[in-house]
């Protein structure tokens, strides 16, 4: 088994077999459960049609996935450095590139676990089934580059800053800034500043695609421009992570 797969498996084990990692997954599940229960119990939310609900669930899963990716990404470099597990890894004959790719594989495992965890919730809230399967595929296709990009960004920041706490805070600030247009009302998003931000914001790219597929019933193929944009984001953050990890301890 090559070093990349070995390290990816180790990172996956950190998430799925450690109490800390299971705790993060539990937190994500509780958030999704609260949203589901609100849909059942809250009058206003229960008025939303199923397409809107599936769209909202897709947005929440993507946002939570990005949050988990930031936590896992910070922990995989800055956290390991503080715990003293990074140096033994760097001192093996395995190249830094392989170590990084292994950790990126670990990020992918974390997102996959999050996505699998979310699938029952999609099924539960999408009772009329409007564009449910297409919606789930859109989240996998477009959500993945967005989520992994935030994971890579957090890894790069973790490699450059001296403490895990400051790395996590910085990464969370980036995440919140990216998510901020979602918190603005539609009228603010229509302003020139809002539109400019939307144009460069990976979250907006994914959410616009979800809207088109789930609510407007467009095809997934037609979302290629949004997909290309999220791939650009993924490429930029990957480059940042590679450059930063090669400089760690140096």
């Amino acid at each position, binding site marked *: 088994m090559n070093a990349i797969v070995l390290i990816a498996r180790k990172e996956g084990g950190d998430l799925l077999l450690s*109490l800390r990692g*299971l705790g993060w997954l539990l937190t994500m*599940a509780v958030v*999704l459960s609260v949203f*589901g*229960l609100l849909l*059942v119990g809250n009058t206003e939310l*229960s008025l939303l049609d199923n397409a809107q609900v599936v769209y909202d669930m897709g947005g929440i899963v993507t946002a939570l996935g990005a949050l988990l990716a930031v936590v896992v990404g910070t922990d995989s470099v800055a956290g390991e450095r503080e715990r003293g597990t990074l140096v033994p890894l760097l001192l093996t004959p395995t190249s830094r590139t392989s170590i990084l790719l292994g950790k990126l594989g670990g990020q992918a495992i974390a997102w996959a676990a999050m996505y699998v965890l979310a699938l029952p*919730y999609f099924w539960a809230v999408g*009772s009329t089934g409007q564009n449910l399967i297409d919606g789930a595929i859109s989240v996998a296709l477009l959500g993945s580059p967005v989520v992994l990009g935030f994971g890579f960004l957090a890894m790069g920041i973790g490699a450059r800053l001296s403490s895990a706490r400051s790395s996590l805070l910085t990464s969370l600030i980036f995440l919140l800034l990216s998510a901020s247009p979602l918190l603005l009302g539609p009228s603010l998003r229509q302003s020139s500043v809002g539109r400019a931000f939307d144009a460069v914001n990976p979250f907006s790219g994914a959410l616009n695609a979800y809207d088109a597929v789930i609510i407007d019933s467009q095809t997934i193929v037609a979302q290629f421009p949004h997909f290309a944009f999220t791939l650009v984001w993924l490429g930029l953050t990957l480059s940042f992570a590679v450059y930063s990890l090669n400089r760690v301890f140096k």
Partner: protein
Amino acid sequence: MTLRTFLLSIALFVASASAWAEPLSVNLSATPGNPASPQMGDHLNFHTIIRNDGPTPVDGLIAWISLVQIDKGKEQPVDLEDWSAHKAVTAPQLAPGTSLETDWPMRLIQAGTYRVVVSAVSRNGPNLTPSTFVDFKVRQKPVVESQRVLPVAVGIPIVLCGLMLWRRRRS
């Protein structure tokens, strides 16, 4: 007083009373595109034509929409807060023979049987002029199926907690 004087007085009284009676008429109807059997979350639209049927202009016109639930045992006025953002219309003056047409969009928040009416007053007019009623029934909407959501929302966190306990016991 002669009969002639008496009749003239009566005529003058009726004329002045007529002059003081509200010259407005309010016609309310549901617009043709409304769903035939609306349910919770649907949108309805109502249309009013407020006409000045009098000989003189009507100043300071205000017209507003009201909604009441008329289900037996649940009769009550309805706060339009979530139902409609368009609750009133005004006009500084409505010339004689002219009309003011207004649309009243409404989102159906709660199931039940309802009656909508539009009322109008003017600054100097003595009376309130109501429209005719329009009644409509709102069906209960099939909400997110609780029998699907509850097992997932409760079950998945329980499974994860179980996994954590198992790992903790192992370590």
